[in-house]
């Protein structure tokens, strides 16, 4: 028979029940005897079945296909069925909390309504153009292969849980919905690319992302939502949907490096906001003055690279690739 090693792990769980503790969350610690092959989910199920039947959690397939069991383990969102206990425990302890950025229904079960609302907001279905074909809408294989990665999304919400912008801005569409939107915008059969991109330019869309890479780090399916958001940004600029600070920032940044090799922060701000945008520039004045008083204002004519021409040459060669 297979030999396995047992040990006891302290599992601290953030709990919350509308009928207990006035609905406030509280942490409860369980000592659980586990096998060395246990996943975090195995341990949680053991608690529910053998120690405390009141613990709420959500899971179904136990094989990282259904996307039901995203939770925070030691502060980071994970699919607990895919997470070996031995990998995450530190000094025989772990902390399990519900996903972030969504309201908690009970213990480790969150209300995914905001997640689905945003998903629906990007119209996650094909909107083809032209005559309806007799059979399926066909697409060449080569045009679809690069979408396989993004189609791997199992809608687990891990990325949404840990997105740093969603923590401070409720109306951000977030990594999962934006990745899904990319899936249709990049589909050659879809006919509403332009309108979709126009919608994503609005407040709460693609330009809200800080590129913090949390979604890239936590996604259990390597969907790489941030990379999709960046592709949406460049598609948006290609389609001349670029009269916003985000697009202007990206374009000015690129131009400054192209021409100077390195960055001039003053020019970047001026060009992003617009040289004649007096109102916005006036708002920046107090910041500039306090920096100046501290002796921190960046020099207007900043350094440049010693070999600007070579850098320009590289830009010329690759900028349209």
């Amino acid at each position: 028979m297979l030999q396995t090693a047992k040990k006891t792990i302290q599992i601290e769980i953030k709990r919350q029940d509308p009928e207990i503790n006035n609905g406030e969350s509280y942490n409860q610690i369980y000592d659980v005897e586990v096998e060395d092959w246990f996943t975090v989910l195995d341990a949680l199920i053991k608690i529910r079945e053998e120690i405390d039947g009141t613990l709420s959690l959500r899971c179904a397939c136990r094989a990282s296909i259904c996307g039901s069991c995203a939770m925070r383990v030691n502060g980071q969102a994970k699919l607990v069925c895919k997470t070996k206990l031995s990998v995450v425990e530190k000094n025989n302890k772990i902390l399990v909390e519900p996903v972030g950025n969504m309201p908690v229904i009970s213990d480790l079960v969150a209300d995914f309504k905001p997640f689905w609302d945003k998903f629906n907001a990007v119209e996650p279905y094909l909107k083809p153009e032209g005559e309806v074909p007799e059979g399926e809408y066909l697409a060449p294989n080569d045009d679809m292969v690069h979408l396989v990665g993004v189609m791997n999304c199992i809608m687990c919400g891990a990325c949404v849980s840990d997105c740093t912008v969603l923590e401070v801005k409720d109306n951000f569409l977030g990594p999962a919905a934006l990745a899904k939107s990319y899936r249709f915008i990049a589909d050659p059969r879809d006919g509403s690319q332009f309108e979709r991109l126009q919608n994503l330019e609005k407040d709460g869309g693609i330009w809200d992302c800080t590129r913090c890479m949390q979604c890239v780090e936590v996604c259990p399916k390597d969907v790489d939502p941030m990379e999709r958001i960046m592709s949406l940004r460049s598609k948006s600029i290609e389609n001349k949907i670029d009269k916003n600070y985000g697009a202007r920032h990206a374009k000015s940044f690129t131009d400054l490096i192209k021409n100077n090799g390195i960055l001039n922060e003053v020019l970047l701000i001026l060009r992003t906001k617009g040289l004649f945008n007096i109102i916005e520039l006036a708002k920046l004045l107090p910041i500039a003055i306090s920096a100046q008083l501290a002796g921190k204002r960046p020099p207007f004519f900043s350094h440049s690279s010693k070999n600007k021409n070579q850098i320009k040459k590289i830009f010329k060669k690759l900028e349209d690739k």
Partner: protein
Amino acid sequence: MKFAFFPGCVSRGACPELYTSTVKISGILGIELDEKALESASCTGAGVLQEKNQLLGDTLNARNIALAEKQNLPILTICSTCQGVMSQAEYRLENEEYRAQINETLADEGLEYTGKTPTRHILWIIVEEIGEKKFKSLVKRQLDGLRLAPFYGCYLVRPSKALKFYEKPERETCLEDLTEWVGATVVDFPGKTACCGFPIVTINEKASLKMVGNHTSTAKDLGADAMVTPCPLCHLNLDQYQDRAAGMMKRKIDLPIIHVPQLVGLALGLDPEELKINKHVISTKKLLTEISLKP
């Protein structure tokens, strides 16, 4: 230990104190900085250029690294963002085909990227290369009693694959470790690996300010005397926009944000003024009194 010094745009622009303090501590730490090797280098693209064109961004970074390789020197960075962007490029350049494609462009200038000496942030070099024992032997001023909240900057923590955390697990806690080596106490808080909000400050100031306010006020309320960061972009946002963030929250925060080389400099016994610690928007006076140093 000799390195090709990559100061980045910010330490030569809005954060000159970072440049100065780096140069000051390097001598004492036995780090020789070659400032000539990368004179014709470009900006890393800071992730912004990569939004539009990853191949172009990776080519520019490969070129910078190849310039250092030509002098047989590894690169030293002092910015989480520069470091992260270069580590990500190096990670993608491990692919042979991709490397060959990029080297084709570099050949025009007689350069070749090999990737044999990975780029490192000065914080990593201190922790990995100099190490606890040697570093502690150089400490002249124990910063006992000082309570410091770490703030890494996204690019020095994610994506962990490109930053090689699996090979070098010490990178995950390097800032806390260094804080303990100088005798200070770590004020741990969940925001330490979060985003400072800098990338969207000109695009969506309110959301950015909320991030600044949340991180600095949480650390302050946990008793931090200052926050320490290896990223000048985080420094800019957390320092320059802190008052505005405090105003939005209708409270006082007043948490000095210091650069890693300034912290190291204080511990090495350097004068605060040499480290330009007085050149911040949020005053460091109280902090310096705390460690009985005249501001």
